[in-house]
């Protein structure tokens, strides 16, 4: 089941566009963004590999179960809530900025709240499903949409309008000392591995995170594409003028023979699916973290009948999104998402340290509570052969 892990890695790599990573990078394009990127690649790969490697020791357990196993209860609850907050805000930011993008490019006359309402209804519904269903959805949608997204990316890279000189000029700034904010932003591309914190629950005993080389290869590709392609299309200076950077970049491409001429629309429709996927995953994870704070809801990854609490928690997230939309505008949203990206880096760091600590404790055999898992249980929920 290792493929599910990489689905998350890949789609988060593609999603970086929607949490405004490229615009943060590009605003620092002359002072340290380029040199921050190799460091981010190394750091992101290291984080991803070490964390998932440590999780290998705990098959069938998510992060809340690890807290329960090694930490005092109050600390576990605090960390769970911190995680839930970080995940849920990520979903809220994406939902808000995407519904804004949609409002701008598709339905400029309708109220932005209507777009938000439709999308958040879909997200409530999707996020409240059980973990296994969420994974199936993930797989299906990614397999449906990623070929076209890759096609668009390669179309952009191979486009004759892409100005390689501008790219070379900006790439030449690699000698500048790296700056911090682009570094934090760039590490987001590698954050897909964070799904192990929850979806590790679905792994079986003896499960290994193989083929970890996929993470640096794909994510570096996404990072480079999302930084350099807009520069190539708009030039070194003009690229700084846009807020919806990638939407405008995609509008530079046309399909000569299709029903749809402007690639922008295809791109936006596909990213609707990806954004919904992102919000589904983040809210679902946040919901499970919140549920793990009480003893009433033991982890049940396979549960097609949706318990009522799932609906309540996801509805709270949706209400928060509306509150957020009421308070925000595009510029403030950009600031908040910068803050979120920075905060996320520290949470990842904390997670890394915690997981290393847990792995060491496990090796020494120190644990607060005995193993709660039944002796043989595999991810399918059916007895093994």
């Amino acid at each position, binding site marked *: 089941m290792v*493929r599910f892990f990489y689905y998350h890695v890949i789609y988060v790599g593609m999603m970086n566009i929607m949490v405004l990573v490229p615009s943060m990078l590009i605003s620092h394009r002359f002072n340290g963004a380029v040199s921050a990127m190799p460091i981010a690649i190394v750091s992101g790969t290291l984080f991803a590999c070490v964390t998932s490697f440590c999780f290998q020791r705990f098959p069938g357990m998510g992060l809340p179960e690890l807290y329960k196993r090694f930490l005092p209860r109050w600390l576990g609850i605090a960390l769970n809530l911190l995680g839930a907050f970080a995940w849920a805000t990520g979903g809220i930011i994406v939902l808000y900025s995407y519904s804004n993008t*949609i409002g701008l490019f*598709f*339905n400029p006359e*309708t109220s932005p709240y*209507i*777009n938000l309402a*439709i*999308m958040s209804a*879909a997200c409530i*519904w*999707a996020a409240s*499903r*059980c973990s*296994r*269903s*969420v994974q*199936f*959805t993930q*797989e*299906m*949608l990614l*397999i449906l949409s990623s070929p076209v997204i890759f096609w668009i990316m390669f179309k952009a890279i191979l486009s004759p309008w892409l100005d390689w000189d501008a790219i070379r000029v900006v790439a030449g700034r690699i000698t500048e000392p790296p700056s911090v904010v682009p570094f934090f932003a760039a590490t987001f591309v590698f954050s897909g591995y964070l799904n192990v914190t929850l979806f590790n629950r679905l792994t079986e005993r003896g499960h290994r995170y193989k083929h970890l080389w996929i993470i640096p290869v794909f994510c570096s590709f996404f990072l480079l594409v999302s930084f350099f392609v807009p520069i190539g299309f708009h030039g070194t200076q003009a690229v700084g003028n846009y807020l919806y950077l990638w939407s405008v970049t995609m509008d530079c491409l046309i399909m000569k023979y*299709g*029903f*749809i*001429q*402007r690639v922008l*629309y295809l791109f936006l*429709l596909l990213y*609707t*699916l990806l954004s*919904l*996927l992102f919000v*589904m995953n983040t809210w679902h994870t946040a919901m499970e973290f919140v549920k793990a704070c009480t003893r009433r809801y033991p982890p049940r990854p396979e549960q*097609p009948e*949706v318990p009522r609490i799932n609906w309540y928690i996801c509805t709270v997230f949706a209400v928060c999104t509306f509150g957020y939309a009421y308070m925000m505008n595009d510029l403030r949203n950009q600031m908040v998402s910068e803050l979120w990206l920075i905060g996320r880096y520290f949470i990842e760091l904390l997670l890394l340290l915690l997981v290393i600590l847990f792995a060491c404790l496990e090796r020494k055999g120190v644990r607060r509570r005995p193993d709660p898992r039944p002796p043989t249980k595999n991810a399918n*929920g*059916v*007895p093994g052969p």
Partner: protein
Amino acid sequence: MLKEVKNKLGNPDDLISETMDNGYTKMEFCFFPGMCDINQVKNGILVPFSYRFDPDEFRRMLRADLAFIHADKPDEWASMLLKGCALLEYEGEVFAFGAVRRMQTKPDPTEVEASLQGPQSAYTEDLDLNLNLVRTVYNSTTLSVEWHQKDNIASQSRIMILYDREKANRDTVKEVRTQLDKVGKNLILGAGQLAKLMSHNRHRLFPVILLTERPDRTVMHLNKGKIVVMLDGSRFALLMPVRFFDFLSAMDDYYEPFWMSRFLIVLRYISMLLTLTLPALYISIVSYNPEVFRVQLAFSIDGSRAAVPYPSFIEVLIMLFMIEALIEASIRLPRFVGSTAATVGGLILGQAAQQAGLVSSIMIIVTSVVAISNFVIPNSTFSYFIRIIKYVFVAVSIFSGLIGVVVTLFMLIVYLCNMRSFGEPYFALFMNAKKHAGKDQTKPQKAG
């Protein structure tokens, strides 16, 4: 005996009951001539009793012949008669003679799931013949056949559960049995009805049980470890648990050359997507986002709508109503009138409606694509469900355009992924490939 039986059955006029006397001894004898095969009754009972009578031989025949069952419980007499036995009382003992009249002696031709190169025989309405068809193709010692008895069913239809002992999942078999037990209805007339009653949730948008009339499909699923339920009096078997993809596969996919079958499968999925989303896309393109299409196309669509006086969704609803009515009419009508309906409908849908300015010519193309694509789906139950879900997309697109359609597509996928058919995932990729590859290697099949 005769008195008791008559009392129990309310003395029906179609029951033949006689006390027969051949000069040496007497025998009480009754049967329903409509339910029994008269030739069997004559050769099995009447001839040995009358002009070939030998008391010893007759007694020996009653004891030894497999067709005679000793029926010493008076409660069962009436139900035995109703199932097509003849009852006789000889020397104080009661015997039932099985002489059920078989209406069918050979398999039906396939009607619903036609195939070009595959076997042409389909199930009949006779359970024993159906079992014969399955056993002939799936000639395996591991095939389990269980008779599921239900006491509270008035129609007393026999229900059989078939599965491969080594391949089927025990939990799933148990689940199927409990679902069958839960069926509360006391009159089961068809396999479709049983499937509806067995599904966990009546309001599902997709079927979780596959109905088939083809023995080869049944056997293929048995070999995959699926469970089959068969009902007497129905020419369809129920297969479970099934997945979304099973509904879009025709048996010809297994008989045709590789690339041809792949091509047809892709064609089916594209058709399904078209029939689901095309009317909704039409509404959203015309009413919300004409700029999505290239300019020439947008203009020609708008130009064709020049004579149409109302918004696009009304146009779509009119045309969809007409095509649904036409399909429904041509299914229910007798064959002779059916072609007339199709002609009349075709005329209206084809030219007149467009020339009258009621609908645009592009809408006529959309409608016919929707209808034709819907016919491509090989399973009729599934294509009904797709027909219904189309309207969900239409409804959403009326209010929120293109984005609504994409969001609804997302929700549909979430819905499918959250479905389970008898505990197994309904819409998940790559679930079975590895497991079955392993199994095929361990058990090589011998030819002949």
